[in-house]
């Protein structure tokens, strides 16, 4: 295979991987603040795309306004989920929490399927669909948008958590909930915020990727799974690991599909997950905070 084709695979891997990274970041934010794995994370990404399609086609809005609305609505949904379904179960058994987030994930998926059916939808790329070519490689402009928006989001999140009071309060919560509570940080607010931010990040990811991969009621499961795998690759609980893991996963998946088999593309994420859980559950970078039984 020529070098250009490798580069092509690399690029499409990085593009999709960016979204895996954003999804993984969403997992990480909620996990760090609450200790829960939010099974509905993938659905936030799905909603970002589907609701944008709805705004675009249903209300005939432009692409960017549709995305804006879809992201806002998804963020609100994320917050609502925390308030309505997570908070009542938070103090109880871990098992109940897991079931609650699974239930939410299924319910969202079910509602979307009920309203939109099983079709796939898409919308146009932001700046048209003429690929840019150089050195034999064709890049879709949307890929550049995806990578650019992802980088911007990561920078914003970095700034938010390291420099703003609110963000630092959330980090404090993740290190020590009781201590945070004792210094006056409202843990409830932090948890709510973590869900809202994860929904926001996920929705943006879903919306910007839709022009490339299309969307349907069903995409949330695989995205969630891959986002989680990305978390494990980078070390659960580590935000850099999450983003890094997502990119790695995207690249591995792309090369796997291109070089080995495209039918089993979706299986790669899972194989990687299993292999890691077998041999190195603390992630490739070994930077996670999981507890062993």
């Amino acid at each position: 295979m020529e070098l250009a084709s490798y580069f092509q695979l690399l690029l499409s891997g990085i593009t999709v991987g960016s979204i895996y990274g954003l999804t993984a970041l969403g997992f990480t934010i909620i996990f760090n603040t609450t200790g829960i794995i939010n099974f509905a994370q993938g659905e936030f990404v799905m909603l970002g795309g589907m609701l944008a399609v709805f705004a675009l086609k249903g209300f005939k809005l432009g692409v960017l306004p549709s995305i804006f609305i879809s992201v806002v609505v998804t963020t609100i949904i994320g917050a609502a989920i925390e308030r309505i379904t997570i908070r009542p179960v938070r103090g109880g058994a871990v098992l109940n929490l897991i079931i609650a987030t699974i239930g939410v994930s299924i319910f969202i998926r079910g509602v979307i399927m009920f309203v939109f059916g099983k079709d796939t939808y898409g919308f146009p790329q932001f700046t048209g669909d003429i690929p840019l070519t150089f050195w034999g490689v064709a890049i879709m402009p949307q890929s550049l948008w995806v990578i650019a928006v992802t980088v911007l989001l990561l920078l914003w999140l970095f700034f938010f958590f390291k420099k703003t009071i609110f963000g630092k309060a959330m980090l404090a919560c993740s290190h020590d909930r009781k201590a945070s509570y004792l210094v006056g940080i409202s843990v409830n607010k932090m948890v709510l915020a973590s869900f809202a931010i994860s929904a926001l990040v996920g929705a943006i990811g879903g919306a910007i990727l839709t022009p490339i991969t299309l969307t349907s009621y069903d995409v949330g499961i695989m995205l969630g799974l891959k986002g989680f795998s990305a978390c494990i690759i980078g070390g659960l609980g580590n935000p850099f690991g999450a983003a890094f893991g997502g990119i790695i996963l995207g690249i591995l998946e792309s090369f796997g599909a291109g070089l080995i088999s495209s039918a089993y593309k979706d299986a790669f994420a899972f194989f990687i997950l299993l292999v890691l859980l077998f041999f190195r559950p603390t992630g490739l970078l070994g930077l996670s905070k999981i507890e062993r039984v």
Partner: protein
Amino acid sequence: MSGFKKDGLSVFCFVLLLLAVPFFLTNVYYINTLTLSAIHAIIAVGLNLLMGYAGQVSLGHAAFYGIAAYTSAILTTTYGLPIPLGMVIGILLSGFIAYIIGIPTLKLKGHYLAMATLGFGVIVYIFFNETIELTGGPSGFRGVPRLALFGFTFESDLSYYYLTSLTLAFIIVLSLNLINSRIGRALKAIHTSETAAQVFGIPIAKYKLFVFVISALYAGLAGVLYVHNLSFVAPSSFGFNFSVELVTMVVLGGMARIWGSVIGAFFLTILPEFLRFFENIEIMLYGAILIVFIIFMPEGIAGSIVKIFAAWRARKSDV
């Protein structure tokens, strides 16, 4: 009445009920629905052992159901193996794969198994769809022989109904016996406080693995009963939606209540027959049931019945 005698009595009544039903419901369509309910109940009971007692979630149990079904189907049809052998191999394969997956994942905290089984279920589904020469791909695998044991072929739907319901009763007895033992207590202990369980000499990872494998074996048993009834398998029966349906059955019926899983399974299998538009709202409904029950009725239907009954007894004794 001692727990053991109570269990025995309830199983006895259950068996009587099952045997009597065909005399009232003579329509073979209803009988087949009940057969399917019993098959689902077998999986649900096993899944309940995992969820309600060991406190772990599996989002891929449809895969264990399917692996056994396909294995037995392929071995008995393509390779002409005797049916009992095909069935046993199918069931054991499900258990073995559960063992492999369980070893790394059960050492870690709850959500790891959930994610790993989710992914595993997806993988198996893709496998069933893609390996067309072996499994027939998306259009399914046909021509599976009808179940025959010791020379008797369960040709009629009624005979199959009796077979599966009696198998279910047997599984219930086995599960009740398991729970009413030091092993059952150990499992309940693990569910509540792993720390304390360890202190009393209970090897947590081993027990969790044990339950996970058992639940896969139950699903496998259901799978082989299913395939040799329908004579046909397709990947669509073993996807994520079914795994979710199974979890919903357990939550609805009541975790850590064997009878609850039976109730949940029968309810969710029979329900679609009454709701014609069910397919559209199916997924939404499962999600809603999971959310509502886990928040308001975590003990499920069976648990609520027990609570109401206990409250009624307490009030009677006050009078």
